[in-house]
């Protein structure tokens, strides 16, 4: 229902993974969060592009992708296909 709830759900999941250490990885819990069906789908599949398009904080996305086993920049294609590509602007350091 809110972006905060999506982010809270992902953040809590990452903490549960951290607590599990080398043990079995817990699956994501969506009960108890006020999420729309689309939000439940996005975090459960997961659909990284949709999670990004909702406005989820990039540090949370990065942590979530790492937990899913993506390394370095190999989740980039999932975000490039999200349909949300930030516009690039001229900066003072560019020659």
């Amino acid at each position, binding site marked *: 229902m809110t972006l905060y709830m999506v982010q809270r759900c992902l953040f809590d999941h990452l903490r549960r993974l951290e607590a599990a250490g080398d043990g079995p990885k817990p699956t994501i819990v969506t009960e108890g969060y006020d999420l729309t069906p689309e939000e439940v789908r996005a975090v459960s599949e997961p659909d990284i592009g949709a999670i990004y398009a909702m406005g989820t*904080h990039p540090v949370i996305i990065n942590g979530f992708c790492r937990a899913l086993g993506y390394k370095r920049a190999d989740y980039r294609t999932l*975000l490039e296909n999200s349909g949300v590509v930030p516009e690039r602007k001229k900066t003072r350091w560019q*020659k």
Partner: protein
Amino acid sequence: MAEIVMAYSASHAPMMTADPGSAPREQADNFFGALEKVRDTAKEKGVQAIVMITGEHFTNFFLDGLPQIAVGLDDAHLGPPEVWLQVPKKMVPSDPGLAAHITAKLVEQGQQPALSYGMKLDHGFMTVYYWLDNTMDLPMVPIVLNCTTPPLMTVRQFHEFGRALGNAIRSYDGLERVALVAGGGLSHFVGEPRVGDIDEEFDTWLLDILAKGDLSDIIDIPNDELMEAGNGTGEIRSWIALAGAMNDAPGEVLSYVPVYEWINGMGVVLYKGDKEAAAV
């Protein structure tokens, strides 16, 4: 009173400890060689404790309560929470007297740091700290900064924070030789379509500014413009704060390598200690 006997800023890409061999050999040697020089300098100076500032990564705080600055006040802090970082877990000793003094003196100077007990030391601290002291016995006072979640303190505000932090450390009478360390940056992108990019032009521009000790070109940069160099690049706030603490003295750029395998511009800038700088 304590002297800041050395200060340095260094990038803290997790891969530098998690998978150091993934970088091209020449780049890794360049970066780690700089960290070895820093480590030798710390031994030579007899550093008794460090104060370390770095970006918060939702390790200690979340959106329900996110301070712009927080000081860890415990006797020791656990690090790192990331099991994959290839750094052993340990309760890293702090100097609680110095931490409490810093907090009080920051408040006296108009800063508003949050107080934090139970702070955890994630890769933002542990990558750089482990290279400084792999026994992890050197006391560390940790300070986290909000560098990624707007509204952010401006670069100028962090520069002022750094000045206040330097004053606070120097007015502490419980130690004689303290090092100030900043972790974070340089340019990098995470969790967005440009993840993996490095803005080498930004990195060399910033390092040139720090080498000259003239921050006028960056001190009033809007956050939106800074973000063009990467959504993780805001972590250079810790480098700016450190420059402020060292009174904008020229820094010595020991290393810069854009390590695409670590998705991070990697750099190290070293500053002379107070007495050495005054003698120049």
